[in-house]
């Protein structure tokens, strides 16, 4: 999510297809793992798959207008999901792929949780470093005023490709660990509402802010999980979650309506 924050929050790039990257990376990891049993190879295959599809998205981000990019990345996400559901000989379709092997080091959930927490902290530190680096300044400059940024030598193609490749690395790490935790890969985990949760966290935490988005993620995940324990009928939990998060997203956009897509400064 923090890596998507680099693209959408900082770069103002309308990438609405992060779930599409996640699907390809996940299936690459799981299918390789079940076929070969090698965790390193599975991670590598997942990473390569994520990089390839991210390269396509990066190319589109350079070629298209922002609203067109949003629609096309969304369409590609749904198309990839359709293929994952209908290519039953490879993916088992809507049944998903159960029985994903776990590393022996992650034999207990406690060990896995601690490892994931450490990796998350390291990723936040990496994002903070990136935010303050020349790359962070370049992507901000492109978002603020593309022409001026190009005039001082910032390459939109190079910057966008790096941003999308960072996202590919982040999503591969996430999908690898989530498969280790869940031990089942199901296409329902990659539907559009999952992406809306991303956007809600980024907007609530302030687009582009690493610490803000990290805090928003923590709070909204606690809220999401806490809703399960609320004394409401089981059938109402899902719809209630949709409404609450829809309202949170709307309030976040209204609150940050001047900073989500800031007006270009002019002389």
């Amino acid at each position: 999510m923090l890596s998507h924050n680099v693209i959408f929050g900082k770069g103002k790039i309308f990438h609405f297809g992060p779930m599409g990257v996640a699907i390809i990376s996940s299936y690459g990891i799981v299918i390789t793992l079940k076929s070969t049993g090698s965790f390193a190879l599975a991670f590598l295959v997942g990473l390569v798959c994520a990089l390839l599809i991210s390269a396509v998205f990066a190319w589109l981000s350079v070629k298209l207008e922002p609203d067109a990019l949003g629609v096309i990345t969304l369409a590609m996400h749904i198309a990839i999901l359709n293929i994952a559901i209908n290519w039953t000989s490879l993916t088992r379709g809507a049944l998903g792929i159960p029985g994903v092997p776990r590393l022996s080091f992650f034999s207990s959930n406690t060990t896995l949780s601690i490892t994931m927490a450490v990796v998350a902290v390291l990723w936040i530190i990496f994002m903070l470093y990136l935010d303050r680096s020349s790359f962070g300044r370049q992507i901000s400059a492109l978002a603020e005023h593309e022409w001026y940024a190009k005039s001082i030598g910032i390459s939109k193609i190079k910057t966008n490709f790096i941003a999308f490749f960072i996202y590919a690395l982040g999503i591969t790490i996430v999908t690898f660990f989530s498969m280790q935790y869940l031990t089942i890969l199901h296409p329902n985990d990659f539907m559009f509402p999952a992406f809306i949760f991303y956007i809600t966290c980024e907007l609530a935490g302030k687009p582009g802010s690493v610490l803000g988005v990290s805090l928003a993620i923590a709070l909204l995940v606690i809220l999401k999980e806490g809703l399960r324990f609320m004394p409401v009928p089981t059938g109402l939990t899902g719809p209630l979650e949709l409404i609450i998060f829809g309202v949170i997203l709307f309030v976040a956009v209204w609150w940050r309506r001047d900073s989500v897509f800031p007006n270009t400064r002019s002389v």
Partner: protein
Amino acid sequence: MQLLANALIAGSLAALIAGGLSLVYGTLGVFNMALGQMVLFGGYVTWFLHIQMEIPLLVSIFGGAIFGALLSWFTFEVFINPFYKRHRFLPLVTTIALSMILDGLILIIFKSSPKMILKGLKNTVEIFGATISIEQIALIAFTVLILCSFAYVLHSTSIGRKIRAVVQHPQAAMSLGIRSPQLHRLIFIFSGVLASFGGIFIGIDQSLSPVLGFPITIKAYAAIIAGGRGHFWGAIICAYLIALIEQLVVGIPLLPGGNYIPAGYQHSVALFFIIVFLIFKPTGLFCSRLRTA
């Protein structure tokens, strides 16, 4: 012939929804991601009035259309108007929020089980070898009537000229004294009414289900992207074209050995349209680039 009949039915539904949306996108430049849910709400309200309240069908349809207009008005005033003046991409996110809220409300109020506005078996007739129900013929005829009426308004009345002027060049239209903000509101409400009729169409012909919302939105956007921004008739034609191709893709043995493409890929046709047109012809089939000084 059956495939053509199916395409005509599906295309009429898509044309109703895409037509109004093309005007909204053409004038405001705004993507309404809650369109599918607004379509469903129109159908569900009609179902409630006709089945639960036992109100006659025509009155229920009128009630569903009124509700659609009110919902669109509310959507415009709360989720669109305060935001699109600041940046035209903000409503994209606010309407995503609205779509989530409407999805939740549909599940709470109407539950997840499919709902049909007209129950029981339908009376079918055979026309040139294609089997079609009386209700489907009525729906196609109604769609043609609505589109023809709108064609008359758009091309033969002063308000239609104003709409076309705002679609072609909003700033030039305002400089001639056309009140664009009021026209934007009117166009948005009209698109909501058309969307409601689409939902009523689905409820009569098939059944209403909460999962239909997002695919409807995507299909409508495929039609307007392929037709060209703001081109009303382009969106209508492309809606029928997409419906026809969807039927042909799964209805004709295209794979080696006389095999059919799995039906699950049928809805990917709309996605394919979006991807191909945005990459190779972003202005759409019927539009050229806006002339500028």
